[in-house]
């Protein structure tokens, strides 16, 4: 086919208008969070003492971290949709949540006696945490990958990893209201590991499905 003929074909195809990628990402946030919420409330539900827990800094701080992570990853997802964007310095957005968490963990080490450090880090539910966060991430991750497919990311692996971070952040936000381990030491260790798994999965999924 000659290039002029191809242009004629493309002009004829202009009626089939794809969805705006930004709208697709916002739809993915809504759909992914909704499915994760349904799954969460049907199999887990928030912890029974949530009213008293909500009066403690440690419990509330978990949401500060997970929501910061989710929001910064979503902000980056909206950027990587465009082929000419290289994130460069904006990638530092991703570091905000981990830095907050490290500071909180350092504060925990200062205020708590060293004999409590290990029990707080190990917690009660690490296996559960490592299972449930990835499980709750599946629907949001699929939704974000679908949305990013509507875009044209220059680096498919990176875009997939960002989708994984956003999905992990959303999943961890729900899981945090069920989990009774509130120490930043626990969150730093096990939440990070769980979200890291989702991010790695997102990276490979991105390389596979986000090339265009």
């Amino acid at each position, binding site marked *: *086919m*000659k*290039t002029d*003929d*191809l*242009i*004629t*074909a*493309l*002009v*004829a*195809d*202009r*009626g*089939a*208008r*794809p*969805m*705006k*990628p930004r709208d697709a990402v916002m739809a993915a946030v809504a759909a992914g969070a909704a499915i994760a919420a349904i799954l969460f409330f049907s199999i887990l539900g928030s912890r029974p003492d949530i009213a008293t827990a909500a009066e403690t800094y440690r419990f509330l701080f978990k949401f500060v971290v997970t929501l910061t992570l989710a929001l910064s990853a979503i902000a980056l997802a909206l950027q990587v*949709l*465009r*082929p*000419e964007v290289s994130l460069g310095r904006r990638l530092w957005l991703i570091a905000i949540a981990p830095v907050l968490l490290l500071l909180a963990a350092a504060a925990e080490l200062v205020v708590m006696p060293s004999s409590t450090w290990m029990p707080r880090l190990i917690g009660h539910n690490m296996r559960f945490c490592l299972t449930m966060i990835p499980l709750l991430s599946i629907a949001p991750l699929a939704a974000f990958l679908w949305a990013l497919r*509507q*875009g*044209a990311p*220059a680096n498919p692996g990176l875009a997939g990893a960002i989708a994984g971070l956003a999905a992990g952040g959303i999943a961890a936000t729900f899981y945090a209201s069920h989990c009774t381990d509130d120490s930043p030491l626990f969150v730093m260790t096990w939440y990070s590991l769980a979200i890291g798994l989702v991010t790695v999965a997102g990276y490979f999924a991105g390389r596979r499905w986000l*090339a*265009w």
Partner: protein
Amino acid sequence: MGVAEEEWAVLMRAAMAGDEVAYRAFLTAITPSIRATARRNLSRFSLGASEAEDVVQDTLLAVHLKRQTWDQGRPIGPWISAIARNKFIDLMRRRGRNAQVPIEDVIETLAAEDNETALDNYDVQRMLDNLNEKQRAVVRSLAIDGASVRQTAERLNMTEGAIRVTLHRAVKALAAIYREQNK
């Protein structure tokens, strides 16, 4: 922002609002620049200019399918350059080379190399070979014979809606050909 870039942006905005003439003018206007950039990159890697048309067609397909990723408030030149570069890297990968391709401004090569028009009519054969029979018939009628959607519908005994759907699937299939080969 150069004059050409401003013109391209105006045409593309009109095209996205549904203007057929503007869309054709846009695609026709960017093609020589994409071709010139592709040739220059190919010669840098000692590859023949015959491959340039593959890159050009691949780039046009991606520009078309990904047109919603252009933010209409931003310059269009870097957007086109990024797509062209991505498609050139794809070609290099198919040739088994891991190319470090500098980010080059497609606009800078604007129409400078018009003397090489001989290859413009280069026929990219693989394109139609990879479509199924129905898709090929629709693309041939619309693109090569220059028939309208209605004429094509009558000729192939299909509805106009079915023609449009088949065409869109065909365009996606054309864009996917190389991607499949890359895997």
